[in-house]
């Protein structure tokens, strides 16, 4: 998901002026969006993003490059968001409209730059429906689906991050996917954008 120039990371480690700003500018939108998908609240996602960058500032000097910086940043973001969700679970969520709730609009920019208007509309509708279907899952299953199927982490990574066994992750994934297929499958199969159907063929 995130694309981070290793040169910028090295510049941050050397303390070069402007390097931290460049790193933040290059990654903060992705960090915010990942956090938003997990916590489903814009204010909380902004808080998570700030917390993530506090951790980044604290740790970037010691980053040894064993994994890519993007992978590390992804993991820090997921961890911070999960911690925030656990904190929130212990207190009531007053006056906040979760993203994906009825009436709350979907995502406004989509990866493929030039689909036709009809395709774009179909896909936007499908993604909004998918977003709503994911939002309707129980929180424990939703987090697992987001980490595994939306963010593309392995089952083992999801198990580590959520503190569940791999078997428990697989069981919840199965139930959640069945539910998603039931609510999306008709439209998903028959109304997938033509380009995606061609791509999968």
């Amino acid at each position: 998901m995130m694309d981070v120039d290793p040169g910028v990371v090295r510049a941050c480690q050397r303390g070069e002026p402007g390097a931290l700003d460049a790193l933040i500018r290059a990654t903060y939108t992705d960090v915010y969006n990942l956090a938003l998908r997990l916590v489903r609240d814009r204010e909380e996602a902004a808080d998570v993003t700030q917390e993530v960058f506090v951790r980044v500032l604290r740790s970037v000097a010691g980053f040894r490059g064993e994994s890519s910086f993007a992978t590390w940043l992804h993991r820090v973001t997921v961890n911070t968001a999960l911690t925030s969700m656990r904190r929130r679970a212990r207190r009531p969520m007053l006056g906040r409209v979760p993203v994906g709730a009825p009436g709350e609009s979907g995502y406004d920019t989509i990866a493929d730059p030039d689909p036709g208007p009809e395709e774009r509309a179909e896909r936007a509708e499908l993604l909004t429906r998918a977003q709503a279907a994911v939002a309707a899952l129980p929180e424990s299953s939703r987090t697992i689906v987001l980490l595994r199927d939306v963010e593309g982490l392995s089952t083992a990574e999801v198990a580590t991050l959520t503190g569940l066994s791999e078997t428990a992750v697989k069981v919840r994934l199965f139930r959640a996917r069945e539910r998603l297929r039931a609510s999306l499958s008709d439209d998903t199969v028959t109304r997938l954008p033509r380009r995606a159907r061609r791509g999968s063929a």
Partner: protein
Amino acid sequence: MSRWSENADRSGAAKRLAASPPGTCATVRPDLPGLDGHELSTGRAAEVRAHVADCSDCAAAAAGHRAVRRTLAELGSTSVAPPDGLLPALLAAAAAPSARATAAVYGRGVVSGTRPGVAAASAGVGAFAAAGLGMLAWRALRSRRALAAESA
């Protein structure tokens, strides 16, 4: 059981497996969602694929799961614009001296000597501070001695 009959049994089982569709819908369905996500062992994935090839219901279910997974993956590449105040807040936090000091590795070269300029500057500051402290201590000691002499 002799080796011959063992082999005969194995080949019979293989023939039976080849003749009937592998698994039943009930045993295959739980594995359909993971079929395209490298979640099944190679052997199990082959069994499930073989069943799906022969069973139109499971083929439809597998196609549904595949489409849902594709849509979910696409959801991960969508993006909303962060709130306006977020970037300035992040940049301000990064500009704070404490944050910069933590992020940069200036401290590392002081001990290792890989950054001689920083090491020399740190040594200078340290020596100055030590001299200042020594001076203060000496003055305190001197005034205490003077007081003691006066009272004697």
